[in-house]
């Protein structure tokens, strides 16, 4: 089967890629673009490990074909940090024990980012609801909730400054 050639917009950069048309976005990111920060746990849309943001919304990259992503603005964990400075969610996850083995962490981070971008003052229940499609076997989730809350608190002044 011939490869498709297309331009994908990932982490703020436009990139030309060639890949087999049946490949999922997950496979294109990992195998054709070297963005191995996005993980896989089932490739059936069950675990949330492969979550990325598409136009700011969390999507499961294992359920999306690469060719469906034409014109979408994709963000992976590699795009969260601004230059060498970590995103407040990344800082909080690292400081507060929210990443143990770290395998589910990229999926949790981008999903939490989508939540806080939309709802900077999310409650514990809203955080639980937003992250309920992401499985973690290590932490018991509590330190993840706390890290999201800590990041939200840290980000709050910036949001208030916005008109």
């Amino acid at each position: 089967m011939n490869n498709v050639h297309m331009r994908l917009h990932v982490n703020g950069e436009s990139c030309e890629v060639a890949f087999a048309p049946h490949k999922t976005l997950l496979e294109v990111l990992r195998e054709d673009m070297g963005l191995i920060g996005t993980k896989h746990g089932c490739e059936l849309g069950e675990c949330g490990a492969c979550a990325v943001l598409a136009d700011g919304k969390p999507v499961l990259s294992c359920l999306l074909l690469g060719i469906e992503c034409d014109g979408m603005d994709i963000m992976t964990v590699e795009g969260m940090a601004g230059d060498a400075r970590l995103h407040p969610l990344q800082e909080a996850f690292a400081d507060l024990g929210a990443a143990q083995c770290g395998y589910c962490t990229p999926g949790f981070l981008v999903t939490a980012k989508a939540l806080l971008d939309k709802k900077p003052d999310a409650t514990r229940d809203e955080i639980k609801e937003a992250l309920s499609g992401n499985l973690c076997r290590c932490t018991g989730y509590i330190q993840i909730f706390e890290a999201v809350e800590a990041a939200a608190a840290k980000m709050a002044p910036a949001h208030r400054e916005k008109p």
Partner: protein
Amino acid sequence: MSTTGAGNGNSNGGSKKDGAALNVIGKPRRRVDGRAKVTGQTRFADDLFFPRMLHCKLLRSIHPHARIRSIDVSRALAAPGVKLVLTGRDFPIPYGILPVSQDEHPLCPDKVRFVGDPVAAVIATTEDEAFDALDCIAVEYEPLATISDPAQALATPEPRIHDYGDEGNVHKRVALEFGDVEAALASADHVFEDVLFYQGNTHLPIEQHAAVAVLDPDGKLCLWSATQTPHYVHRALAKALALPAAHIRVIATPNGGGFGGKSDPFHHEIVVAKAALVTGRPVKICLTREEVFYCHRGRHPVLMKIRTGVRKDGSIVAMDLETLLDGGAYGSYGVASTFYTGALQTVTYKVPRYRFRGCRTFTNKPPCGPKRGHGTPQPRFAQEVQLDKIAVALGRDPADLRLQQIAEPNSLTANYMRIGSIGLRECIERVVEGSGWRKKWQKLPLGRGVGLGCSSYLCGAGLPIYWNDLPHSGVQLRLDRSGEVTAFCGATEIGQGSDDVLAAIIAEVLGIDPFDIRLVTGDTGLTPVDLGSYSSRVTLMMGNAAIQAAERARELLTGPVARKLGVPASRLGFADRRVFDVENPDRGLSFVEAVWLAEAEHGTLGTTGSYRPPQSAARYKGGGVGPSPAYSYSAAVVEVEIDPGTGWIHVPTVWIAHDIGRSINPTLVRGQVEGSVYMALGEALMEEQEFRRLPPKLSSAMVHKFPSLLEYKSPSTLEMPDVVTYLVEDPDPKGPFGAKEVGQGPLLPVMPALANAVYDAVGVRIDEVPVTPEKIVRALDAQAHGRPARVGPGKFPTVRWPEALKVPPPWEGGDGNAINEPPRKSKPTDKGGRQVRP
């Protein structure tokens, strides 16, 4: 969270033990590998890509038990992209994790023993091509009768699944008796007898197993793998491939969750290694989620019969435990698992006399092995549920019943486990107070209840998996004039934070920051041996080795610095990246200057440290499983709300206290406790490794009921209750800075506490794990119809037990030897004259 007992008077903290303030140990910190994990830069095994890399897929058996008549791979070899096809013929040498169970082949040579047993491997240029070519392999099978459960295994000696084992389809039977148990039971005021069942479940790491084998430029083999035990994989590769171990390098990639499921050497690791040797190209394999369910090695389903004799006040006079394990198709860790279903029953409470008989059977299902708690959660569930029944029957508060008979610190148990520190009393008091137990137990309205459970666990297995008299853990340090300290250790980072513990301990001793240390871990080509991340051994064993290495480095620095400053060496302190006169802290040198001076004096700087556990007091055959340098303790109170109509169980809060000895990094310790509670609730409420039979025309195959993350239910964010964690810090003299384990122990008390809470809430006993709404409704229905308000197994099948090895307890004149043990073929002794046991 609160902590107590921060004194460090008797801890194994080396130079820091004289009451000096600790700068790193005990402080909540970002773990040293935290940044890599939150930026997606941690390289897991499947994140490795090499030029010209080939991909491997395994053809797995569709039959649960069959002879392989023939395999035709000719069409597969001709398929697009295929470079190599391997079958059992390519792997004549068996392997297995235990020396007594060398019963696996990388690909089955003549017989398959469960649906999922690998029979052939295709190596192709892409994963899709390898997958497609699997369909081109023709395997002719001769189906055999299948064994689906232990009762059937006991009743069906032929056909045998393996041609080794105690008899028929019985893999292993053990019987140990510590004092005359029948006499003690006859003298007891009450004897309680219960039969309980603990269902099997699986680890479910989010990372699927993956491995990449590469032929290095010098022609030597290198395997990168998601393994918890690179040292044992190294040995298995050398054996199965008949290569010198010195020509093989195994690198454990950070595991994306382990929980025991990546502790065996696996088929796929050996297959890709062979494929790399044959093709000369890198070969990768990553299992599908379904394959991970069939790899398994998880919690054994265990049927248990427990008879306990007590005095009027509920104090235990004797315990008699029988366990029947469903081992699945291979040995794996099973012999150890069998012993573990009995070994730690005596470590929590005083048990003056004890008999344990355990039996593991082979069945045609994926092999069981070690999962968090390895063999001990099942009998712990039985004992703690029975204690709750005893308390109710005798009108005692379950907390008081436990508090009155906690095992003695610094004592030997009936089966010769040597206990050090015990923080269990404080654990119980903390959860009782924190949960409001005294105001809740038997006092909440119908549908709400609380339950209590306690437990203890190993801080590392006292003996290695194969007989040897070598260190269990080794650490090397390299210091150079830049001031950089590099630590080398074979310990394996599986998410628990072993890298962070290593850095913290060295940083504390040398007075530098954990981030100043470069870590090289889990690499058999570069690091001294550490046996692996299992049995909660890493913090204690690697930690003690790290202290020794770091103290030796300190000694190298001390002389030159003392002379330079003109103060006695004994007055030097190490902190804040400085070496200074503790009586005049302004007088000192930077750590970098100190290393410079030491390198000038000694030449190139390097030290080593190693650790080997103390000798066990258990000298009887089988006494090698259970001894540990120290034991951790936990207590939990679980609150439940149950809808009596639907049986639906809601857990609002769990209070848990864990005797950690000392926290190295409290942030990670709390994460281990909460993660244990989470995994325990999964086991207690929903997780099941369950199989069903396909119709006879499909060979009556035993297939997994739900090999997917969606249908194998595990708790999500929405099911996770609030957890109140108390860390009890009673430093143990055997632990590094007094630290004990936390990775496994806190899981154990939760399952029985939940079952006990269900009884408190609605008055029915669910003597089985998992405790499900359906079982509660059944028990409530039985209650309403005047039948016993219980769901659980009926009876324990007849097992032909061997005569028990009789070992008099320490208080009955015993010395740790059995009085009726037949002479062993050989009693190997190590160089120190210690007897070594399996």
